């Protein structure tokens, strides 16, 4: 890697910087820990992502920038402009396709991704793809994996994907069963923090105080209640499965890297991707990446990896941001601001972010201490 050519803010983290080791899907990467020793490139965004990627060594560029990427989820689908889920799915599946050498089958739960990608008689999928029901994607994927095993197709990798509702709520029984049996499936949750396809209702992944169609911003406790909700990555870890990771659409290198390594592992793997939804969150279509990044930089969405039930790495926050910066961009939190606003609720959310920072050790000792946040 030619460090001198990178923008000053681009940092390389991880093992020995050997370019030959970075080609994902190379045979050297197969094994229990396919990502071990692989160069991992992280950008700290200051300008445009495209510039940073262009300056990287070709072998370290993203799957998305590769002209031979599979375009698993092709253009022409009907997602809203700026849909984080469409981005996330496209990034994730292209990475999985590259890692699997094209030998991939995807199972999809009902939800926005399924609906906007396959309006009869069209499909955006360029991969083998099956939609069965809302709640059963993990089990259907288990069935596909079993069929592949019995037919001796050890080369084929199976991915299942669902929204947060299909993962943390209605699909959780099947998912937990799939985890517990350590079935050979990579499950990807695209978390947009509500039931978007049915019109933005609260799910078990909806954050406290967020306005949804079933947690209206009215009354003394506007929005979704505090003290509820499920932290699925941690529940996945509690199953002791080989691999759990979180990621967002704001860090393409990190997302692709995690999907590639997860694809090449065996057993139950879980990747939880935060995918902002302009419609449900009330953000500008152009702000999808920015708002996803703020979710990580506030500490509200910790980005980490875990193996066999223990956290093995976390993405540190470069410059910690106050939650106001994140919440203020989104209409679903609009009731917390203005006059008089609800500074008390904002403070509770800040406390959640601080807890998350402490729990996962998201700050380097020298990096922005909470005091740096100024605005508080």
């Amino acid at each position, binding site marked *: 890697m030619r460090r001198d050519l990178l923008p000053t803010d681009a940092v390389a983290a991880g093992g020995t910087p050997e370019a030959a080791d970075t080609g994902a899907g190379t045979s050297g990467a197969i094994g229990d820990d396919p990502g071990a020793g692989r160069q991992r490139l992280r950008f700290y965004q200051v300008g445009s992502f495209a510039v940073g990627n262009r300056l990287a060594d070709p072998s370290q560029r993203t799957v998305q920038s590769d002209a031979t990427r599979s375009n698993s989820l092709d253009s022409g689908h009907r997602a809203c402009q700026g849909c984080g889920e469409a981005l996330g799915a496209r990034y994730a599946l292209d990475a999985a396709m590259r890692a699997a050498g094209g030998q991939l089958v995807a199972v999809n739960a009902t939800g926005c991704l399924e609906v906007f990608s396959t309006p009869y008689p069209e499909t955006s999928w360029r991969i083998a793809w099956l939609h069965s029901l809302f709640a059963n994607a993990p089990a259907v994927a288990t069935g596909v994996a079993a069929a592949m095993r*019995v*037919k001796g197709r050890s080369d084929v990798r199976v991915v299942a994907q669902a929204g947060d509702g299909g993962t943390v709520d209605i699909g959780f029984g099947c998912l937990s069963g799939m985890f517990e049996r350590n079935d050979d499936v990579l499950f990807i949750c695209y978390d947009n923090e509500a039931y978007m396809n049915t019109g933005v209702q609260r799910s078990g992944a909806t954050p406290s105080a967020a306005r949804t169609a079933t947690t209206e911003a009215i009354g003394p406790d506007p929005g979704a209640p505090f003290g509820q909700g499920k932290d699925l990555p941690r529940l996945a870890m509690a199953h002791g499965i080989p691999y759990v990771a979180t990621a967002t659409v704001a860090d393409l290198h990190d997302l692709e890297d995690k999907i590639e390594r997860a694809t090449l592992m065996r057993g139950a793997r879980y990747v939880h991707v935060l995918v902002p939804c302009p419609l449900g969150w009330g953000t500008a279509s152009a702000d999808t990446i920015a708002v996803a990044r703020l979710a990580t930089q506030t500490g509200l969405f910790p980005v980490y990896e875990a193996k066999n039930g223990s956290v093995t790495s976390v993405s540190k926050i470069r410059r910690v941001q106050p939650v106001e910066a994140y919440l203020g961009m989104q209409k679903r939190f609009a009731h917390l601001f203005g006059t008089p606003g609800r500074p008390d609720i904002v403070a509770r959310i800040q406390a959640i972010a601080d807890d998350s920072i402490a729990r996962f050790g998201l700050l380097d000792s020298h990096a922005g201490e909470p005091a740096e946040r100024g605005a508080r």
Partner: protein
Amino acid sequence: MLEQIEGSRAVAKTVARCRPEVVCAYPISPQTHIIEAIGALVRSGELARCEFINVESEFAAMSVAIGASAAGARAYTATASQGLLFMIEAVYNAAGLGLPVVMTLANRAVGAPINIWNDHSDAMAVRDAGWVQLFAETNQEAADLHVQAFRLAEELSVPVMVCMDGFVLTHAFEQVDVPEQDLVDAFLPPYEPRQVLDPADPVSIGAMVGPEAFEEVRYLAHVRQLAVLEQIPVVAAEFERTFGRRSGGLVSSYRAEDAEVVVVALGSVLGTIKDTVDERREQGERIGVVGITSFRPFPREAVRQVLSAARQVVVIEKAFSIGFGGVLATDVAMALQGLPPEVVSVVAGLGGRPITTVSLRRVLQAAVNDRLPPLTFLDLDEDLVRHELERMAATRRSGPTAENLLRDLGVPSGHIG
């Protein structure tokens, strides 16, 4: 080779000889012995090249079968009652996706009140799901129908449910000639799916279909079921040529040719009915029996043929549509439209209540004397019901009646189930 064997084991051995590649298991009485036995056959290596998966629910069982089948594997599961209802969304889905999953249904009542014993409420609850539903009269037929089920399912891309009466068949030991491996192999070719999840030829399966084509999709499912109707006798005939015994088919008929009164039923109760009919025949009454083997698709033409000469058709059924009446009787009456026989429904054997020769004799006598109303409940405890109705008239109270009845019977409910 005839052997003395439990019905569940005979079915398990037969299913194993059909070489399923993925078997999903979740326990529920009275299906448990079937999946236990298949699990053991996989463990011992007798059933090789099979993934036996202990899933976390029936919903997962059918979902795993869906994934396996869509990826080109021969998939099998078994369930009953609450389990079938727990998986119902996936039951519809398997049919909608045209996946040739085979499932044994060990027929059992559906709660509340929870009841583990035999009736046909579970099968009737998924009558419209798009599955082929075959009913076995004996354990021999239960075993044989599974071999035919895989053949039908895979030839026509439809899921097939083999219904066998819980306990009455599943737990009964009798002589069964378990289909021999070489004959099964000759009769049932390996599964070659028409459309499969294959990375080399990627297709999207399970897309959304709106009003522009949904009716057509459903109509074509119906047409496919009609094709099954044509195929069932063909497969049964080939089965007879291969195995040397008759099993399956659309309907079975016993002493019905010249009968004035014909009894129609599903499943194992046909045996008791035949015994009773033999006895009535000796008294000079012209009574016959028709068994419906293929309940879905419903063999309208075959039913018309065997019943058209009767004066009265008595449908004895182990389920009914609450608020209306007999389910099978409705189908039979529809099939006989424009023909003279009068169709009446006798609901019997709910929740495992035995259907005895004594009671059947009473029903048949009433039928011969033209005294059967359109809907009868066999052996209903009239006193118990009257008492509860009076109580309900006196004090309006919401909630379950089951506990009240048990109190009247002096049965502490803690001792039940």
